[in-house]
């Protein structure tokens, strides 16, 4: 595929659940190597939108075009493995298709959790679990990583470290990243573009544009602006990055 065709391009996206309109009139595109974050209040259709993009939700209108041969790595919101199901990390990464041992090791390494392959999935901490899910998404050598609130259940330093790792992955692997998050100030700093969603696209642009937009402030208030500014300042200063980065890097 040519470098300037968008990885995903969609127009006039409509999704209905029963009688309710979950999403309407959404135009969206994401380019190679871009990090795009979707923010929005609860019930604004963020997860539905991601699921529509991977084809898990039927559309009631509009169209979605994937670049030919697009490989998507999907990191779900949360995954509860029933405790009655015994499964090792290595076996989990071999579903649905078997993967050579060396690739499992390298994906776990890239995701920042080497040496976990023989552990039981049920015995992992929240942060380890999310990184195993990330490793699983990396196995397909994706052009686009899609993360649906991948840091739910992690504390703030934990999610900040996770998102910095995502940013690092983009730099190393060149894959685009599309993510949904609640933790606005943490995620926004790592984003090239932010889309504020509430059934439709309220506003979009650079993190600064969006956080200053009246539509965004109407939804989230102005309170997060200070935290955002503070965080971006720290981020560009690189003063504390080394502390939060996982030791594996």
């Amino acid at each position, binding site marked *: 595929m040519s470098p300037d065709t968008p990885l995903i391009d969609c127009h006039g996206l409509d999704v209905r659940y029963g009688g309710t309109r979950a999403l309407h009139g959404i135009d969206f595109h994401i380019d190679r190597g871009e990090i795009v974050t979707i923010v929005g209040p609860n019930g604004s259709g963020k997860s539905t939108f991601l*699921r529509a993009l*991977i*084809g*898990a939700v039927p559309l009631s209108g509009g169209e979605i075009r994937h670049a030919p041969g697009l490989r*998507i790595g*999907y990191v*779900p*919101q949360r*995954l509860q*493995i*029933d405790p*009655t*199901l*015994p*499964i*090792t990390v290595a*076996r*989990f990464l071999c*579903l*649905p*298709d078997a993967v050579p041992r060396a690739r499992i090791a390298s994906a776990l390494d890239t995701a920042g959790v080497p040496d976990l392959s023989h552990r*039981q999935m049920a015995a992992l901490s929240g942060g380890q679990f999310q990184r195993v899910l990330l490793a*699983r998404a990396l196995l397909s050598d994706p052009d686009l990583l899609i993360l649906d609130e991948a840091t739910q259940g992690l504390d703030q330093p934990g999610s900040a470290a996770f998102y910095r790792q995502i940013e690092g992955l983009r730099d190393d692997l060149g894959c685009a990243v599309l993510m949904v998050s609640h933790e606005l100030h943490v995620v926004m700093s790592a984003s090239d573009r932010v889309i504020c969603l509430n059934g439709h696209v309220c506003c979009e642009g650079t993190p600064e544009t969006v956080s200053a937009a009246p539509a965004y402030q109407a939804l989230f208030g102005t309170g997060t602006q200070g935290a955002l500014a503070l965080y971006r300042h720290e981020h560009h200063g690189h003063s504390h990055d080394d502390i939060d980065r996982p030791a594996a890097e």
Partner: protein
Amino acid sequence: MTLDPFLMRAILAGLGVALAAAPLGCFVVWRRMAYFGDATAHAAMLGIALSLALSVPLLAGTLAVALTMALAVSRLSGRGIAVDTLLGVMSHSALAFGIVAIAFVPGVRLDLSAYLFGDILAVRWVDVALIWLGAASVSALVAWRWSALLTATLSPELAQASGIRPERERLILTVALALVVALAIKVVGVLLIAALLIIPAAAARPMARTPEGMAAIATALAAASVLAGIALSFAADTPTGPTIVCAAALVFVLSNSAAALLSRAPPR
């Protein structure tokens, strides 16, 4: 010592059902479908009544009704009534309607308990052949879809992202479940089929580290329970189907208490 032919048939029938039920039972446990298995089994009673009334083969009648029930529950779940309520309603209604319907079938004076609790000592060679044919089909189906079934069980969304359709895998499980229920009626009866699905899987859980390991151990435990149950019922002159379930329950208690004791031991 030579085995009486009826004992031989009982053992073969029991092992056939164990072979098909145990791996499927693992999915029933992992997906928390225990009650679903129960409902499908209870619906088979209605199938028995219909087969008698229409004089069609028992297997065909029970399979048809069990399948209808399983599909109906699959379809109706998530539409305003909680799934366990829905299952409770449908499962027990089907059982009650089945028993009442049998009373209406003219000219039939039958031993209800043979259907409720099984009559493994009365299986004929043709039943044994049908059970093994069915068990082989179910095992082949589960083995063929294993990876997709497992992925869909772990996470429907991950499955979807890998190009697997979770609804289709669910349908495959539902069909396999109905088939096992129809096969197992002769062996353990309508009321105890779910036990044969769930207990070996639950007993295997503490010993397993992988899903495949759990399915293999569950199959071995189910086979052992069948053999022990038949031997015990022969020795003590107890009803065979329930004795098999008792043996399985004993294995479950042993396995889980051993695991509890081991986990309390000092770390290695």
